[in-house]
C-alpha cells in the first residue's frame, strides 16, 4: 500500500469514526443525567408553576452540590431541561413528546395542575418514559393502570378524610352537635369530586354522625355564589365544607361574610391559610377557617429532614417555602434516590425501585411510598391547619405533626 493510499484510507476511517462516534458535547452528556420537565411558567397557572420551578431547581442544586447522583461506581451530575408548557394541555403533551423523542432525556418530572398532568402522563406512558410528578392529585390520573407514572400528591379524598377525622374528634368531645348537618359545596372538577367523595363517604361510615343537607357543585371561577349560599343559609347547616381554588374561595367567602352566615366549622378544602386571602377578606373574616394541605413549613418544627429543607430553601430565597416548592423538591429527590438505588439509568430498573420505594420523606407521616393498590399514587397524610386570631395557622392534626391546638366551634359565631 502506497503512503498516499494509506493516508487516504486512514483519513476515510477517521472521517467514518467521527461520523459514528458522538460529538463532543454529547459525549460529555454521558457524565450527566438529563431530566426533562415542563411547568406552566406562563398562563393561568404561572404563579404556581414558578413555585414548582423553585422546588425543582433547589433539588437539582442540592444534589449537584453533593457531587451528583451515584450511579453504580460513578457519580453523575443531574441536569434539568425545563420548558414552559404555557398552562395548556396541548403544549404540555407536545413538549413532553419533544423531550422524550428529540432531546432524548433520561427521565421526566411532571408538570403542575391536574388537567396538565392527566394529559402529559398519557404521553409519557405511551413512550414508556418514567414520569414522576408532584402536581396532579386527582385519583383519576392513577386509576388508568399506567405503569410508568408515579405521583407524590395524595388524593383530595384523603384531604377531606383528614379534615373530617379532626372534626369527628371534636364531635366526640361534645363540641359539635350529633348528628352534625353538613353543607357541602364543591367545584365541578376532578379535584372537587374527590373532595365530595371524601366527605360523603366519611359521613356514610359515621353511622349517623353526619348528615349532608346541601350537596352542590359550582363552576370554577364563578362570579356570583349568592343563590348557592342562599341555599346553604336556608339549610341551617352546622358545618360549611367547600372545596375551591383561591379566587373562588375569596369571592365565595366575601359573599358568605356579607350575607351574615357563620357556621360552627367552615373550610374551603386546601385553601384557607393563604396570606393573600387574609389580605383580600380581612384577617377577622378568615379566623377559624380550617384547611388541609399536602405539606407545611411548620413541619420543620417536628422533623429534621423538613428542617433541613426549610432552612436551605430559606437561605436561598429569603422566605419560607410553601407546599408547592416542597412537592417539587420532593418529586425530584424521589427520582434521584430511585436512580441511586437502581445503580443504573435503565428505566425499567429505576421504575422497579420507585414502585418498591419506602424512604424517609419531608411529607407528613415522614415516609414516601407509591402503593400499587392506589395506582402508584402516594397516600401520605395531609396536615390540617386552622387560622387563629393572631394570624397564625398552626397544624392541628394529625397529632404527631401538630404545632397548635384547634378550636371548635367557631367562637366568633353569634358575636
Amino acid at each position, binding site marked *: 500500500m502506497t503512503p498516499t493510499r494509506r493516508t487516504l484510507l486512514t483519513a476515510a476511517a477517521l472521517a467514518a469514526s467521527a461520523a459514528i462516534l458522538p460529538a463532543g458535547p454529547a459525549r460529555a452528556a454521558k457524565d450527566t443525567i438529563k431530566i426533562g420537565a415542563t411547568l406552566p411558567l406562563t398562563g393561568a397557572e404561572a404563579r404556581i408553576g414558578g413555585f414548582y420551578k423553585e422546588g425543582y431547581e433547589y433539588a437539582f442544586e442540592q444534589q449537584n452540590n453533593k457531587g451528583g447522583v451515584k450511579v453504580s461506581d460513578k457519580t453523575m451530575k443531574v441536569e434539568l431541561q425545563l420548558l414552559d408548557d404555557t398552562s395548556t394541555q396541548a403544549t404540555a403533551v407536545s413538549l413532553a413528546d419533544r423531550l422524550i423523542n428529540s432531546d432524548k432525556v433520561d427521565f421526566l418530572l411532571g408538570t403542575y395542575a391536574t388537567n396538565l398532568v392527566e394529559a402529559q402522563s398519557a404521553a409519557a406512558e405511551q413512550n414508556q418514559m418514567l414520569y414522576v410528578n408532584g402536581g396532579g392529585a386527582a385519583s383519576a390520573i392513577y386509576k388508568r393502570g399506567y405503569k410508568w407514572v408515579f405521583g407524590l400528591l395524595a388524593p383530595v379524598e384523603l384531604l377531606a378524610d383528614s379534615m373530617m377525622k379532626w372534626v369527628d374528634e371534636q364531635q366526640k368531645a361534645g363540641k359539635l352537635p350529633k348528628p352534625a348537618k353538613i353543607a357541602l359545596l364543591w367545584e365541578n372538577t376532578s379535584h372537587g369530586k374527590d373532595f365530595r367523595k371524601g366527605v360523603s363517604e366519611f359521613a356514610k361510615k359515621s353511622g349517623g354522625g353526619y348528615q349532608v343537607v346541601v350537596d352542590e357543585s359550582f363552576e370554577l371561577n364563578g362570579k*356570583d355564589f*349568592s343563590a348557592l349560599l342562599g341555599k346553604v343559609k336556608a339549610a341551617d347547616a352546622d358545618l360549611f365544607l367547600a372545596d375551591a381554588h383561591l*379566587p373562588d374561595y375569596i369571592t365565595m367567602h366575601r359573599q358568605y361574610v356579607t*350575607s351574615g352566615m357563620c357556621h360552627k366549622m367552615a373550610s374551603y378544602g386546601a385553601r384557607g391559610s393563604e396570606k393573600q386571602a387574609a389580605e383580600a*377578606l380581612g384577617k377577622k373574616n378568615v379566623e377559624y377557617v380550617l384547611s388541609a394541605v399536602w405539606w407545611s413549613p411548620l413541619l420543620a418544627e417536628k422533623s429534621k429532614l423538613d428542617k433541613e429543607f426549610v432552612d436551605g430553601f430559606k437561605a436561598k430565597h429569603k422566605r419560607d417555602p410553601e407546599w408547592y416548592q416542597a412537592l417539587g423538591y420532593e418529586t425530584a429527590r424521589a427520582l434521584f434516590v430511585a436512580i441511586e438505588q437502581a445503580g443504573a439509568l435503565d428505566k425499567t430498573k429505576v421504575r422497579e425501585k420507585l414502585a418498591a420505594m419506602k424512604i424517609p420523606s419531608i411529607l407528613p407521616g415522614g415516609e414516601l411510598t407509591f402503593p400499587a393498590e392506589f395506582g402508584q399514587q402516594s397516600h401520605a397524610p395531609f396536615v390540617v391547619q386552622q387560622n387563629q386570631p393572631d394570624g397564625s395557622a398552626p397544624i392541628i392534626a394529625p397529632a404527631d405533626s401538630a404545632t397548635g391546638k384547634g378550636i371548635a366551634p367557631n367562637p366568633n359565631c353569634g358575636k
Partner: protein
Amino acid sequence: MQRFTELVVFSVLLAGLYATMAYGLGLIYGVLRVVNLNHGGVIMAGAYLGWLLHEKFGIDPYLSIPVVMAVSFVLGIAIYRGLVRHLPRGPAGGVQSLLLLFGVWLVLRNAAYLLFTGNDQTIRTEYSTRSIAAFGVALSVNRVAVFSIAVLSLIALHLFLTRTFTGKAIRAVAQNADSCTLVGVDVERIYSLTFGIGTALAGLAGVLGATLFSFNPSYGSGDLLKAFVIVVLGGLGSVVGTAAAALILALVEGFAIYWLPAYLTGAVGFVILVLVLVVRPGGLFGQRVLG
C-alpha cells in the same frame, strides 16, 4: 317567602353589573356593526387599572371610575383609529374585525400576564365585607354601590343618546350612515367616538366587577359571553332592552338553582339565547335603534 325575596334582590343587584358589561358591546355593534371581541380584554384592563390606582395611590375604586373610563375611552379611540377603521364593515368585514379584535384581546391578556403575572388580585376596602339590612336581607354595601352606579350610568347614557346632538348623531349614523354624510355629520368621528364610549363602558364594568370578585389576566372572558347573551336577548342597540335582558338573565340564573345543579345554572342563559335566536331573532324587545 324570605328566600324568594332574597333571590329577587340578589338578582336585581347582579343585573346592574350585567347590564354595564353588555351595553358597550351592544353600542359598538349597533353603530359600527363590529363585534368587539376585545370587550373582555378591556373589562380585564379596567379591573387592573382600578386595582393599580387603589394599591399604588390608595384611591377608592369608586372614585377611580372617571380615570378608568377616561383611559378606556382613549384606548378605544386608539384601537378604532389605529386598527378597526382600516377594515371593511358589515358582513364583508365581519371575519376580519372578529379576528383583529380577538388578536387585540390576546395581546392585552398576555401583556397583563407579563406585567402582573397570573396571580389572582382583589380590591379590598374597609367596606368590602360590610352589609346593610334591607327587605329583611343582608345586602353587601359593594353590591348596592355597583348596582347604583350601573343604573346611573345607563340613565346617563340613555339621556346622552336621546337628548344631545352628538347622541342623536350616533343614533342617526346607526340608522343610515350614508344619509348622515349627506347632511354633514362627520361619520368617522361618530364611529370613533362610539368605539371610545363602548370601550369606556367596558372599563367601567371591569372596575365595578373588581370590587366584587377576584381577577387575573384571563378575567373578562366569562363576562364577554354573558354580554353576548344579554345583547342578543335585549335586541341590539336598546338601552331599556339591555337592562331588561340583564335582569331576566340574572333572575333566571338565580332561580335556576331550585331546579338544576348549581354548576348548570350558568348554562341556562345560553339555552335562552338559542331559544330567542330561533323564536325572536331580533331579541325579546325587537330591533330598536339606540334609545
